[in-house]
């Protein structure tokens, strides 16, 4: 039986041997790498690079038609419209004020969400790295929200935060009165940051936990023998040795924060007003939700965002490379 399988197995692979030999003979060995890369290059080309090129093309056209042949060439007009501002710090002075509100909201969201998420993830990882009861359970608790679909996360929190939701019912029961959490711009913004941290924190806790466990135990033993206090061990040993991991976590969370959309869209719809409208939602609204659809403007806005993401990705690459060199 085993011999039969081996024969079939070898036979299946030998089918390719002759054609590949002929190919290598005709192309030369140094070009064979391209033959193996070709399937992946085709897939990436078709589903990644071609859409990018199309997006660039769309950003230079106007009108509400979908087919590029039916669209008018407008050059850089869409970018000029987006950047037509009295002051970039005051969205009201901009022609496309909603774009700049989205830029401002995204900026604040990234700063607050990433800042607090790294801090809380670090604290959680430090606690979970210690010998505590039910450690496995708590690790699962932190990671569980990561497994949930963003829409499910948003619906759960909507159920908690709405006018007659669980939170208000609890506050009412405690005699504290109720708050329209999602109808007040400041509270709505607070909650999108909070929910986003709750939903994504587990992933970063896991990475930081791996980073913490990679720190050699003998360093801590030596510090303990020298009588170094716990706080000093954290500042002088843990954090410096965890820095490369923290850097990766920061860049990854920055990229994900800039791309935030689904949870927020379901939770607040970008409202009240434009208080929780981030860049991706602006692009979606302009390109798909409003009529007539302004594909050119949406494409231009998405390229602006792609520029920001490119910078963040290059930072991540630099950080990873530095870590590899140090490691």
């Amino acid at each position: 039986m085993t011999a039969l399988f081996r024969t079939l197995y070898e036979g299946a692979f030998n089918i390719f041997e002759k054609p590949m030999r002929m190919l290598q003979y005709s192309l030369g060995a140094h070009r064979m790498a391209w033959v193996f890369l070709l399937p992946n290059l085709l897939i990436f080309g078709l589903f990644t690079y071609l859409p990018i090129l199309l997006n660039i093309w769309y950003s230079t056209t106007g009108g509400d038609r979908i087919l590029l042949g039916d669209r008018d060439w407008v050059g850089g007009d869409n970018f000029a419209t987006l950047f037509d501002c009295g002051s970039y710090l005051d969205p009201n002075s901009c022609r496309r004020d909603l774009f700049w509100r989205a830029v401002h909201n995204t900026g604040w969201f990234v700063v607050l969400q990433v800042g607090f998420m790294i801090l809380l993830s670090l604290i959680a990882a430090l606690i979970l790295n210690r010998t505590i009861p039910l450690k496995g359970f708590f690790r699962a608790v932190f990671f569980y929200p990561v497994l949930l679909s963003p829409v499910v996360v948003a619906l759960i929190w909507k159920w908690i935060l709405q006018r007659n939701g669980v939170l208000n019912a609890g506050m009412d029961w405690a005699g504290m009165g109720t708050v329209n959490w999602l109808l007040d711009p400041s509270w709505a913004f607070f909650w999108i940051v909070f929910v986003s941290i709750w939903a994504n924190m587990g992933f970063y806790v896991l990475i930081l936990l791996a980073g913490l466990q990679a720190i050699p135990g003998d360093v801590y033993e030596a510090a303990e023998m020298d009588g170094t206090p716990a706080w000093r061990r954290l500042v002088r040993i843990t954090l410096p040795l965890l820095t490369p991991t923290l850097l990766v976590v920061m860049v990854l969370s920055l990229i994900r924060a800039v791309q935030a959309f689904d949870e927020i869209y379901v939770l607040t719809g970008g409202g009240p007003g434009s208080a929780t409208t981030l860049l991706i939602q602006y692009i979606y609204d302009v390109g798909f939700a409003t009529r007539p659809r302004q594909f050119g403007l949406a494409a231009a806005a998405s390229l602006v965002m792609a520029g920001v993401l490119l910078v963040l990705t290059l930072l991540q690459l630099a950080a990873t490379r530095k870590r590899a060199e140090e490691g």
Partner: protein
Amino acid sequence: MKKNIAISAFALLAASAAHGQELRFMCYQDGNECDVWADAFQTFEAENPGITVVVDVVPYQAILESLPVQLEVGEGPDLARVTDYGGLARFMLDARPFVEDADTIEARYGQSLAWARVGDNAADGIYNIVDQLTATGGFANQTLFEQAGVDMPEPGASWAEWAEASVAVQQATGVDFAMALDRTGHRFAAPAISYGAALFDESGEALVIDDGFRAFAEQFVNWHEDGTMARDVWAGAGGGTYQDAAAEFINANLVMYYSGSWQIGRFGRDIGDAFDWVATGGVCGPEACTGMPGGAGVVGFNHTEHPEAVGKLIGFVARDDVQAQVLAQTRNLPANAELQANGIDYQDVTPEVAAALTAFAASVPTFSDTAYALQGYQYNRAVFTSIPARLTQAIVGELSLDEALDRLHQDVADAIAEAR
């Protein structure tokens, strides 16, 4: 023998391929419209041997988002049930050359036929047969009024009178909301016109922010500030997102709800005998008592390979007897003038639903020309989505009312310029 059977089968298939015409009908339904049409098309198929109609039931979102993309690239169904006549007008087939009695159709559906006669479409073309006329209007929770001991405003009462009475009921009964209006410019337009908004300039372009528009916008924002209007509906979303308050009305959390006739079936089913409710009919402003017309209709598309068959089907859909039968089962309002005059014998409806249908049907003739003009305006979607986006900013304090109205005017102008 086997050879003979195979040849016969092949000949039969070839013949049916040559003569059989299959029409694909993309259909969405608020209630049972597609199911009723599928039954009705059996009559059409019996009358027109060789033509079959396949009804593909899809969500409304597919009609809004997928259908335009399919049509843009020359694909998609032969016919569809749509609501965005202006946006899809350029893809529509003119059925006039294929229908038997174009003049009768013109006489019956003249007002709604105009909704698709935009852009390059012919001024006398027959593009759409509306099978579900909708009318915006109010609903009131009669039980709450009785519990509060407040008199319900009479038909023809003003928005101010309804606001005052609804707040009195809310305060007496302790329910969450006095009034609510669906979050869309379509619903906002009716009271704005009633307050005197002209909406269009001399050349027929929207959106003019005049004193009438500003007056209702100001009133609307003030009603949100003082709690008369349910803040959750408009402030609870961003951009042009549609949001209704039907669930609040069904849960008896809302005294007066301004929505439209398409809610009647849902209220009849979901409220049952939990409380008494009534359709208020038109609500008045200083200048008019209009609602907004609208509705779904059957249209054919010009990429079809069977224009004649599509035209025949449009003619069938327009027939008085077919419309009367379908409307009786779907419990919708007729766009057909003859049926509007004679009334529909709705089947198996409760007294409340029957009264509501009657009230909404009676309000249709009072709708203003401006309301019909807006419904038929090619770029009305730009108006409908921009109004909630900007007025919500004024409601939550992101913009002053003046800034919001300036932005609204500019948004609509930009969108129309982009489309052109």
